């Protein structure tokens, strides 16, 4: 799959094309050199507005490479999610540069594997584990989560010897909303038929946008929109008009598991919507502004994230409805990481929802970070497209 013309200018034109992590690393290193502390994060539930209001820069810690799994399996069970094994392997082999420059780590009680893995790495860096309510609709959930966010603020303030103000958090809420609106303007180009974006462009932009401030992203957004407007004016698009449009949902997809995106493309599909924490999910909703209680506003927004660790996770189906209406996919492909029980079980609901409510073919791919199953996945994806 490629653009309909040659010599297409990359969405972010710099020396890091195809190297999302290196681009983010350079950004964080620059901030650190300027005296900002670094808060390592593992999950989309980490409240970025509070981290930024304390004056820190967030760093997404390494979790997506097969190479560190063998080292991790010396301690962790083999039958565990590759994301957790990879994360742990990076720490014990001291090969995650983001962890290396982190001054503290923010963690959440999302799934059992992560929760227990955090215990094993808690002595490396100052760490704060947030108790994430998993019944988000219970009336106490919001207050409990807000309390946790306040505690995190205290931890960061003490560890970094800095302080955040309610006004500062409110300003960060507004900045996030501006960023998310701009990101959605970019995503709009993937809703076009055919899409004007290649999946890796969305992936790379999302990677950077999670760590960089809205202010620092402004010049990049300007260039991005200029590039996209040029593409539109010149009739440049990605893939073909008849290529199946694919919505990928499920576990985070990054690094070595992007093999699934590549296989989808090689089989003739175009990934238009990336419904995961490494894709479009972190940018899909906004935070309520001017509530007078910014911590509660932040808490409310993060609690709405439709991760499968929540029960019941009805918001995921609601969000899926919106994503399907917006991106008009021809198929839904769910990526479940091996031993991720919550996404794996929830997949049954997603399958029924896709098939029965939206009449869309659905395929679940259960995989890890190795390349041993590439041909098996290819057979399934090609068969899915054959059946259209």
């Amino acid at each position, binding site marked *: 799959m490629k653009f309909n013309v040659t010599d297409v200018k990359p969405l972010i034109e710099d020396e890091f094309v195809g190297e999302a992590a290196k681009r983010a690393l350079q950004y964080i290193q620059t901030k650190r050199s300027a005296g900002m502390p670094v808060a390592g994060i593992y999950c989309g539930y980490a409240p970025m507005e509070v981290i930024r209001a304390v004056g820190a820069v967030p760093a997404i810690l390494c979790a997506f490479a097969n190479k560190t799994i063998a080292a991790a399996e010396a301690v962790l069970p083999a039958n565990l999610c590759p994301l957790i094994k990879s994360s742990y392997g990076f720490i014990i082999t001291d090969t995650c540069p983001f962890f290396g420059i982190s001054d503290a780590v923010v963690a959440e009680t999302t799934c059992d594997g992560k929760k227990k893995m955090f215990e094993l790495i808690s002595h490396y860096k100052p760490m704060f584990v947030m108790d994430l309510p998993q019944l988000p609709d219970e009336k106490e959930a919001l207050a409990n989560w807000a309390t946790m966010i306040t505690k995190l603020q205290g931890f960061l303030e003490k560890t970094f010897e800095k302080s955040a103000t309610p006004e500062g958090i409110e300003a960060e809420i507004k900045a996030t909303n501006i960023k998310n609106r701009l990101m959605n303007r970019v995503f709009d180009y993937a809703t076009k038929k055919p899409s004007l974006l290649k999946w890796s462009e969305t992936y790379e932009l999302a990677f950077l946008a999670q760590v960089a401030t809205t202010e620092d992203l402004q010049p990049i957004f300007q260039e991005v929109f200029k590039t996209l407007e040029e593409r539109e004016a010149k009739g440049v698009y990605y893939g073909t008009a008849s290529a199946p449009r694919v919505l990928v949902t499920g576990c985070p997809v990054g690094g070595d598991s992007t093999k699934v995106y590549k296989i989808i493309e090689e089989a003739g599909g175009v990934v238009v919507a990336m419904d995961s924490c490494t894709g479009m999910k972190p940018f899909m909703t906004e935070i309520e502004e001017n509530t007078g209680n910014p911590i509660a506003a932040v808490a409310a927004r993060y609690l709405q994230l439709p991760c499968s660790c929540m029960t019941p996770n009805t918001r995921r189906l609601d969000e899926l409805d919106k994503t399907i209406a917006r991106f008009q996919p021809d198929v839904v492909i769910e990526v479940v990481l091996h031993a991720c029980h919550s996404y794996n079980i929830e997949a049954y609901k997603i399958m029924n929802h896709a098939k029965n409510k939206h009449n869309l073919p659905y395929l679940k791919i259960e995989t890890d970070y190795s390349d041993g199953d590439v*041909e*098996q996945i*290819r*057979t399934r994806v090609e*068969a*899915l*497209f054959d*059946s259209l």
Partner: protein
Amino acid sequence: MTTTLGLDIGSRTIKLVVWKSGATVMTRKALTSYDPIAVCRELLHDAPTGPLVATGYGRHLVKEYLRCETISEIKAFAVGARAVFPSCRTILDIGGQDTKAISLSEDGRIDKFHMNDKCAAGTGRFLEIMATALGLSLGDFMTEALAAETSHPINSMCTVFAESEVISTIARGIARPAIALGIHHAIAARAVSLLERVSITEDILFAGGVALNRCMHKQIENKLDRKVHAPADPQIVGALGCALLAAKNV
């Protein structure tokens, strides 16, 4: 009329079908080995020539070499199944390392499909390894299971664990035919659960190398409580589908 060819490069066996004037004029099979291109060359070297479509795990490997079109096994089986069994609505294919269940609409289009997880549990390879663990050839493994009076349940579905289970069952003095039948039961149950995922509509076709196993065929019929049709040569259904698609393209 044009001669067309279908090639199914499976994980264990490579199948060739030559189609001419509305009929199969040649079928050939060979073990896949470590060098599938050499095996394909051998199968094709004095065969009639014509447009060729390939499927199976090795299809991408031969795509450049033979300059042919490739299709997924699902499509190949959907087309081939209707050719050998025109009223077919449900296909069960148990091959060397894959098990597939496909449901077809009334006009033969693919409605739903499901495949086993990426491991070899419940596939032909699984049967081979279990037969070896029992010290039997594949043929004798089936014959012993057919003649068994009792069945000893085998619970593990992971090929490696199931082999250990079989070995420890032998060590406990359980009769070999009972273990052989237990293994057939376990695979049949797995195949039926895969079929249930795609909704079973008659008529049902059983294809792939494992369909040669009469005990498996019988167990699947028993568990479904329905008649299951196995074609005379269940291994060539995918290759036949390819040859037919090649003919359609001409």
